[in-house]
C-alpha cells in the first residue's frame, strides 16, 4: 500500500524548519558546542559570534538595531515578558492595559495574571471583520493607561490590525504599544519603528525556523523602554532575560530571518494566489460557504472558512489522513468551547463550530491545493448527507426558530 498523501495546511500552528536553516544549525550541536556567555575560550567566542550574527539577521528583518533584540524561548515567553515586565517597570506611571478579546492566550492569560497582581485590564471587542475600531480604542484610554497590546495579525483568521493608526494613537497619548506579531514576522513587512510599536513579540517556529526560540524587540530609543526580567539568574540579554542562550536555535532563527527577509515578498505573492484559488473553488463548488474576518487586511496565506451545517471536527475526520488543518470547533479545543476568536467576531456558535482554518506555507504546492479542494469538497458533501440540520435547511425550515433540546 502506498503512503497516503500528506498535505500540510496548518502553517499557523507551526511551520516546517527550512532545510537551509537546519544545515546552518547542525555544526552548533557538536563541533561548536560553546556557551555564548563563556568569555575565556574560543568555544565561547565562536558561540557569541554566532549569536551576534543571528541577532543582526533578525534585527535586519525588523529594521531595528541588534541591541533591541532579546532572545527568549518563544512567543509565549516574549508576550509574558513584555506584558508583565512592562507592568512592573512602569507601575509608578499607571496600572491600566488595553488589549483585544481576539488576542492569543499568551497575551490574555498574562493580562489575567496582571489583574491578580493589582493591574486593570480592558478587553476590547473587535468589529465583525475582526479589526479594532480606533475610536473605541481611543475612548478606552484612561489617565492610568500604560500600554496597549494588540496583535499584528490574528492566528485564526489572519486579520491584520491597523498598526500604524494604533501606533499614532499610542504616541499621541504617550503610552506603550506592545504587539504580539507571532503570525506576521517573516511573512509580511513588520517594522516596529515605522508603525510605532515599542515591544514586539515573535518566534522562530512560525517562520521556518526551529521551535524553542523566540525574541522580544524592546525599543531602545524614542522611547527607551525597559522591562523587568521575569526569570532571575545570570543577567543575560541586558538583564532582561537570564538563561543560557539556545545557540543552535538562535543560529537557526537568524538564518530563518535572513531567508524570510529575502523571500517573503515572493512567498506572499505566490501563496495569496493559491489561497484565493482554494477559497474561490469552495465558494463555487459548495453552497453556504462563508469566509470569516476581513479579507482585505489579511495575511496572504490564511483563510478561515465556515461550511455551514457541518461540524468542523467531523469534517476534518473525513480528510485528516491526507490534509492537516485546524478547526474552531468546540470538540477540537481543550476547553470544549468553540473558538473565542470567532465568537468575538460576532459569529454564532453554529458558524464557529463549522469553521476550518487553512494556513498555507512556503512549501505548499499548487498540486496540493488542487487535491485539497477535491478532498474537502467531498468531505463537506459526505457530512451534509449525514446532517439533519442540512436536510432541515434544504426543506426551508428556519433553524433559528427550532426549539433545540440543548444539552
Amino acid at each position: 500500500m502506498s503512503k497516503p498523501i500528506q498535505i500540510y495546511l496548518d502553517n499557523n500552528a507551526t511551520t516546517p524548519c527550512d532545510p537551509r536553516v537546519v544545515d546552518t544549525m547542525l555544526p552548533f550541536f557538536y563541533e561548536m558546542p560553546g556557551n555564548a556567555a563563556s568569555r575565556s575560550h574560543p568555544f565561547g567566542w565562536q558561540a557569541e559570534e554566532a549569536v551576534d550574527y543571528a541577532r543582526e539577521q533578525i534585527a535586519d528583518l525588523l529594521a531595528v538595531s541588534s541591541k533591541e533584540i532579546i532572545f527568549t524561548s518563544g512567543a509565549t515567553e516574549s508576550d509574558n515578558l513584555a506584558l508583565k515586565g512592562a507592568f512592573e517597570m512602569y507601575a509608578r506611571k499607571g496600572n491600566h492595559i488595553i488589549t483585544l478579546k481576539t488576542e492569543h492566550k499568551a497575551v490574555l492569560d498574562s493580562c489575567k495574571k496582571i489583574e491578580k497582581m493589582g493591574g486593570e485590564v480592558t478587553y476590547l471587542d473587535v468589529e465583525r471583520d475582526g479589526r479594532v475600531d480606533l475610536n473605541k480604542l481611543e475612548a478606552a484610554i484612561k489617565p492610568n493607561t500604560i500600554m496597549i497590546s494588540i496583535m499584528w495579525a490574528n492566528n485564526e483568521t489572519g486579520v491584520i490590525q491597523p498598526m500604524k493608526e494604533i501606533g499614532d494613537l499610542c504616541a499621541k497619548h504617550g503610552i506603550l504599544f506592545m504587539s504580539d506579531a507571532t503570525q506576521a514576522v517573516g511573512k509580511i513587512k513588520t517594522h516596529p519603528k515605522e508603525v510605532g510599536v515599542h515591544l514586539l513579540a515573535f518566534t522562530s517556529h512560525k517562520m521556518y525556523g526551529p521551535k524553542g526560540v523566540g525574541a522580544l524587540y524592546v525599543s531602545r530609543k524614542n522611547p527607551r523602554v525597559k522591562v523587568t526580567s521575569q526569570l532571575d539568574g545570570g543577567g543575560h540579554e541586558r538583564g532582561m532575560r537570564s538563561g543560557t542562550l539556545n545557540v543552535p536555535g538562535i543560529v537557526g532563527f537568524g538564518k530563518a530571518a535572513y531567508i524570510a527577509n529575502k523571500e517573503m515578498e515572493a512567498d506572499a505573492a505566490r501563496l495569496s494566489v493559491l489561497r484565493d484559488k482554494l477559497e474561490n473553488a469552495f465558494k463555487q463548488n459548495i453552497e453556504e460557504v462563508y469566509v470569516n474576518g476581513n479579507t482585505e487586511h489579511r495575511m496572504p496565506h490564511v483563510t478561515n472558512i465556515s461550511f455551514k451545517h457541518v461540524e468542523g471536527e467531523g469534517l476534518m475526520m473525513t480528510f485528516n489522513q491526507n490534509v492537516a488543518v485546524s478547526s474552531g470547533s468546540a470538540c477540537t479545543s481543550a476547553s470544549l468551547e468553540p473558538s473565542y476568536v470567532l465568537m468575538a467576531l460576532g459569529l454564532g456558535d453554529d458558524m464557529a463550530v463549522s469553521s476550518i482554518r487553512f494556513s498555507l506555507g512556503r512549501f505548499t504546492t499548487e498540486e496540493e491545493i488542487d487535491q485539497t479542494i477535491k478532498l474537502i469538497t467531498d468531505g463537506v458533501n459526505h457530512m451534509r448527507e449525514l446532517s439533519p440540520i442540512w436536510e432541515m435547511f434544504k426543506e426551508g425550515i428556519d433553524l433559528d426558530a427550532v426549539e433545540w433540546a440543548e444539552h
Partner: protein
Amino acid sequence: MAYSEKVIDHFKNPRNVGTLDKESSSVGTGLVGAPECGDVMRLQIEVDKESGMIKDAKFKTFGCGSAIASSSLATEWLKGKSIDDALAIDNMEIVEELALPPVKIHCSVLAEDAIKSAITDYKSKNGL
C-alpha cells in the same frame, strides 16, 4: 486525538443513514442536541405495531466523528429489538463498544437521549 477503529468504521461507513416518514404513526422521531453545541442527532424508529418490535431505524447526525459513530451504532442495535429492550440501552454500552474517550462520553449520552426521545414520540403518537 486518535479515534478507535470502530469509530472510524462507523464514521466512514455509517449504517442506516436516512429519513423515515415522520408523519407515519408507526414511526417515532427523536431530535436531540443543538447546532450551537456542535451536536444534533435525529434518530427514527419504525415499529411493527402488532409485535412491538423495531423493524427499521435511521439516523442523521450533525457532529463529530464520535457523535456520528454513536448514532450509527445505536441504529444497528435498535433493529430487531422490542421497545422495552431498546429503552434499556445504556450510554455506557456505547462508550464501551466504541472505546470512546472521556471527553466524548456526551456523544453516547446524546445517542441514548435520541433513542428515548424517538420511543417517547412513538408512544405518544399511539397513545401508549
